[in-house]
């Protein structure tokens, strides 16, 4: 293995970090912790950096940096506790849709685990009628990409904002799109089982894992800084073992999560395993649980001030709640990973015929 970061990626990170430092973080304690979605405050920065080209193959005029770049971008956005204006567009483009269409969170996409709501599709002459509620990055979009269950499996459809029975609500976070027998034409299907959705889902999971890793690392950074100057019992908080050890454990967890996330991205980018095998799902589940736990440790380490506008931790805390389960329940993701590992073990046992463990 060779685990030094690619210099180009380091450069990209530096540019992003510099840009993000100029974008103010909200201090409101209620309502959405970030202004999310395409038109969010980070969009301008991403456009200025040409972020749409990061993952696009060189043959298509892009930089060909793979999903690893998308993960790094998402991580930096999470680290700065900003909304993720990157992931929706990347996901939409991968599904073969217009970049202006806003995709619903991929909980119901073929191969995904439940999360982000559920939509049922009923076949009607000339198309489908959709009923259900899904979460999205933003409701300000001309169209939405919605994964729906049909009698023959899940499909992804592009639904115009003007579709009958479609309503939106952005008073909650994530915002939701409600569909009540909304008609879409048969030609609106953009992804079907066994099609492009599988690879797109793997990459979407990794970008979200990167974002969650950033949220966790950002919260840890705030907690480390605060406990480094706050004194109690005549000592810096961070010099007291009951405070220092949980923060140290959190750092170990962050580094393990980083390993899981970037390994998953590397497997997908290099094709070392088909769409990274279960590594993207494992990376997402790891990052989701790390984000919740590291933020919790940060809040505990910093005391009541963490619950006020005095420390940015409150923002990470609320953001982690929104983002950790958005792409699926971690426990369900782990069951998916476990089932595949067990299948491999059974297969190895069958091949060896001796019951010996696979090497």
């Amino acid at each position, binding site marked *: 293995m060779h*685990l030094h970061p690619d210099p180009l990626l380091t450069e990209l990170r530096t540019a992003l970090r510099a840009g993000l430092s100029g974008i103010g973080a909200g201090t409101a304690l209620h309502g959405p912790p970030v202004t999310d979605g395409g038109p969010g405050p980070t969009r301008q920065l991403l456009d200025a950096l040409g972020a749409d080209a990061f993952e696009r193959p060189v043959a298509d005029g892009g930089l060909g940096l793979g999903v690893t770049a998308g993960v790094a971008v998402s991580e930096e956005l999470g680290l700065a506790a900003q909304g993720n204006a990157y992931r929706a567009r990347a996901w939409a483009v991968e599904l073969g849709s217009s970049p202006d269409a806003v995709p619903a969170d991929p909980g119901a996409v073929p191969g995904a685990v439940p999360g982000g709501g559920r939509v049922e599709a009923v076949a009607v002459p000339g198309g489908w009628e959709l009923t259900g509620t899904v979460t999205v990055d933003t409701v300000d979009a001309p169209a939405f990409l919605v994964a729906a269950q049909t009698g023959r499996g899940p499909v992804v459809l592009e639904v115009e904002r003007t579709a009958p029975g479609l309503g939106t609500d952005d008073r909650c976070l994530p915002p939701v799109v409600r569909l009540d027998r909304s008609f879409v034409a048969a030609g609106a299907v953009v992804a079907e089982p066994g099609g492009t959705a599988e690879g797109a889902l793997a990459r979407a999971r990794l970008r979200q894992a990167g974002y969650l890793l950033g949220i966790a690392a950002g919260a840890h950074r705030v907690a480390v800084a605060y406990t480094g100057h706050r004194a109690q019992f005549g000592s810096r908080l961070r010099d007291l073992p009951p405070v220092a050890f949980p923060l*140290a454990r959190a*750092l170990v967890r962050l580094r393990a999560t980083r390993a899981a996330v970037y390994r998953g991205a590397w497997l997908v980018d290099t094709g070392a395993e088909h769409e990274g095998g279960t590594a993207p799902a494992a990376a997402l589940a790891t990052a989701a649980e790390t984000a919740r736990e590291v933020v919790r440790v940060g809040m505990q380490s910093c005391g009541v001030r963490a619950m006020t506008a005095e420390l940015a931790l409150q923002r990470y805390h609320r953001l982690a709640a929104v983002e950790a389960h958005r792409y699926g329940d971690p426990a369900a993701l782990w069951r998916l990973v476990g089932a595949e590992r067990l299948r491999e073990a059974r297969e190895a046992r069958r091949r060896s015929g001796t019951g010996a463990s696979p*090497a």
Partner: protein
Amino acid sequence: MRFGFTEEEQRFRAEVRRTLRTPDIRAAAEAATGADGVEPDARPLYRLLGRTGLLAVHWPVEYGGAGRPATDAAIVAEELVRAGVPDTFHVNSIQIVGQFLLMAGSEEQRRRHLPALARGESFASVLYSEPDAGSDLGALRTAAVPDGTGHRISGTKVFSLKTRFVDLGLCAARTTPDTGPYRGISLFLVDMTAPGVTVSLVPGIGDEHFHRVDLDGVRVSEGDLLGPRDEGWPLLNEALAVERTGLDYHLKAERWLDAALDALTDTAHDISRPDHPDHGEHLERIGRLHGALAADEVLVWEVLDGLAADRIDQLATAVAKYHASELAQSVANWAVDVPTPAQRSARTAAARVLDSAYREAPGLTLSAGTSEIMLRIVAASLDSVSQEGY
């Protein structure tokens, strides 16, 4: 970044795997594996392995190695464990003492000791811990008193593994008293057959037992002093970092998870059937452990890559050792409940491995620096760690 292995590394791995799958090595490995508190002598297995030239492939040819890259040595270590070879001799003799000799030993010391270690004809052990100096090595009392052209060492060392089988001890002793806890310490190579060395067994719950080594005026020459006199503490820290790659713990975690899966997929007990009552619960646990193991491998290789480039990163080693040992322990603690009564009664290979694992597991977060010491190192780094360090 590259999270996989090069074609050349994969070729080498395949070659090592073929070599280790020969019937004589398989039989010797089986005979060297402890069970039920009985610890066989694994030296015959290592003599056999020594003849394959695999034990220290990264050492220079003149010291008994094959001059291969250090990453190849880690590949060998991985494959030894996957072939069922008990690895304590390899970890102690090659990965710790041998490696440390290579880094800090004199030319004469290297030539004297390394070739025999590489051939599996000589074995080594570290002698650091004392009855009153466990995690706090600054409290060590063993003294080395000048004696003409050498020193005489007196003191007691405890809790080392395999010591009754080894020829060489890497011993930390105080050469200048009353200079503070971390000063005046030196490292010596001790002939374990020398007059004054008494090795006794301290039985433990694992299949490998502990030892007490009493040193009573043991004579060592100037040529046995490793590194400069009185400057052993920084060397000791380097030696400890070499111990803390996490690789051996990672491999235990991998082996034990494989054994658990083996038990779970036994046809009489096949947990993969969705109608099995424990199906969902086990799936979630297996998924978590598999995911953690994949991340763990990266943390371990981050350290190994650093060592291959002569870089010792104390934070990375503490992270890798903590994560790998805690993970292996959690695998063992879960997996002990996996074999069914029928599998235990039949003494299946998986049931035996998992029983042994459970008894060994408490030591993993104690040896080579306890988890608490690792956390202390990590906590101390919080002041300096940059965002890139996350």
